């Protein structure tokens, strides 16, 4: 299942590629700052031209996340946002006619508790296109992968600069939709500068797969997005967006989300 152009994610990458464009893929935690407000923010991200949106499912122990994302996760948990609410959020956004691909990004334990089959089935029915599970290696993902295949949804694996040849080929072989290329050694978080060796690393990943490649972790500026566009197919932005949202009061967050996406696209100044 290495190419899945029939999925909405695959279609989007194929279309952007033919137009010579890079997918801008913001991440937002469901339930931050409130569940209702997160819906508005995600809608605003789409309105501003984000090609796909990653929706974070809050978890009590997010080991792959830095302080910005962790804090949003904690706020979402404190206001009661749980996995079923995240699926419902997608359902409601779809009902409003939003067509951009949605990815659910959440840690494994809440998925296990919800039930893997039920998780994929309910999410697919609600309009989720793909899944990212940061603490689930390709080796441990068989059940989830089978369910995704059954429902025609993508299971996205992460690769890192530290990934060995063996691990790159496993991720390439078992992943679908795109490969999530973690740009640095480290947790999520905005960074001043992208790594100098990024091109070399992406070239190495490219030699293992025809899947689109999206780069994440550390992207915070239009220059970064441009740099990513030269070597990869998508740019994932998480912590930098959260930092931009944190700079304004809650009621201004949807507008700030829109402004930040336009800024990253080079359409507006910050």
């Amino acid at each position, binding site marked *: 299942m290495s190419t899945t152009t029939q999925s909405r994610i695959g279609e989007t990458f194929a279309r952007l590629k033919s137009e010579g464009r890079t997918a801008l893929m913001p991440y937002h935690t469901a339930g931050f700052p409130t569940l209702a407000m997160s819906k508005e923010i995600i809608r605003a991200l789409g309105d501003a031209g984000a090609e796909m949106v990653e929706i974070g499912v809050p978890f009590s122990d997010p*080991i792959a996340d830095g302080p910005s994302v962790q804090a949003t996760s904690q706020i979402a948990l404190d206001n009661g946002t749980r996995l079923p609410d995240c699926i419902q959020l997608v359902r409601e956004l779809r009902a409003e006619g939003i067509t951009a691909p949605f990815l659910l990004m959440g840690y494994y334990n*809440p998925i296990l508790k919800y039930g893997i089959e039920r998780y994929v089935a309910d999410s697919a029915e609600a309009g989720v296109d793909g899944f990212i599970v940061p603490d689930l290696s390709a080796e441990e993902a068989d059940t989830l992968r089978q369910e995704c295949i059954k429902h025609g949804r993508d299971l996205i694996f992460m690769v*890192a600069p*530290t990934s*060995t040849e063996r691990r790159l080929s496993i991720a390439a072989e078992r992943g679908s939709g795109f490969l999530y290329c973690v740009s640095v050694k480290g947790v999520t978080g905005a960074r001043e500068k992208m790594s100098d060796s990024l091109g070399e690393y992406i070239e190495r990943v490219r030699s293992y797969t025809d899947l689109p490649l999206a780069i994440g972790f550390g992207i915070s500026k239009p220059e970064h997005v441009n740099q990513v566009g030269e070597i990869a197919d998508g740019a994932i932005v998480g912590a930098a967006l959260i930092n931009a949202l944190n700079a304004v009061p809650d009621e201004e967050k949807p507008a700030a989300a829109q402004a930040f996406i336009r800024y990253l696209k080079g359409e507006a100044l910050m």
Partner: protein
Amino acid sequence: MPPSCIPEHSAQEQLTLSHEQRVYQATAELPNANGYFGRFGGQFAPETLMPAISELIEAYQEARKDPAFQAEIDRLATYYVGRPTPLYEATRFATEAGGGNGPRIFLKREDLAHTGAHKINNALGQALLAKRMGKNRIIAETGAGQHGVATATACALLGLKCIVYMGEVDIHRQSLNVFRMRLLGAEVVSVTSGSKTLKDAINEAIRDWVTNVDDTFYIFGTVAGMHPYPMIVRDFQSVIGREAKAQFAEQVGGLPDMIVACVGGGSNAMGLFYDFIPEKDVEIVGVEAGGHGLEGTKHAATLVKGDEGVLHGSWSYILQDDNGQIIETHSISAGLDYPGVGPELSWMKDSGRATFAAITDEEALEGFKLLCRTEGIIPALESSHAIAYAAKHTRHLGPDASVVVNLSGRGDKDMHTVAEALGVEL
């Protein structure tokens, strides 16, 4: 000659074994190549860590076969840690607890190991492994502070840089150990995320490891976490059970009828239990923290009350809510205050090889006081759970039976907590 500090592993075929054989012969068999004990264990880790984990497995397998590594551990165990620790028969304690009809009770005195707890066995082993791998920056998590102190000690001894992550809540309740770590040259980082206790300290240490994976070795303190940690920590701690077995045979003859240890993450328990797994006549009991009681969520009885899930890289029993969020636990002892448990202990529960019970804060304090009063030994609050279990629940074994209790640490660090619980102002 004391038993060596690293166990022998044989490579027998396990597929042909019956369930019972598998339960009792597991010593030589588990975990499997993917880090599983039955269905428990595995490697649920961010991709960035996976290569470091493979590197660690390789380095450990190599070190384990190297007689020089083995000899260095044994030398330090003898001359630095003070091994073997005594197996001591607590007669006054047993008489008072059993009313004259209870079993003989023996204490494995890990409290007499250097730094005052069993944690040094593992910290020293992993620090030597780090040094061998050329990783000079050490990180560790700590709850009660015992593993942090042990790691800081090993790093001071071997000249390694040491950073210890500790929850803000634990820093307050274990301030003495924080001071000790700093004296030993470690940097103690306060963790303010989540419940600000051990589980959050582990999260933060994992994040550090993900970020600094090239030069950093994570000395994990318990038999939980992703493979190979449950195996490595168990192996380094298993000297406890090997010694206890030999000492018991020498002092009494044969095998004890029951062995008891407290279980937080489970390192002292696996340390005592491991060599007794194949001995089917030995009853194995793990004692968890019952906190304020098992009715609500104010406890840390993961095996007794939890269900299966994934936390900190392994599939095991955990304490979680209906949505799979990890619950904030409670125990009077910081070292047991953890919502997860080692996968091998989960496997021992499900295979029936061990049983698990809970002892409340109040019962643990009673056990604590009883041991102080009858034996002149001040146990750690963690160990007091095992002590209390032995005092309350072993009388039925009768006077001909013998029970070995792991006295995993000394209680000096807990003076403030105990005083507060007893309403005494220091």
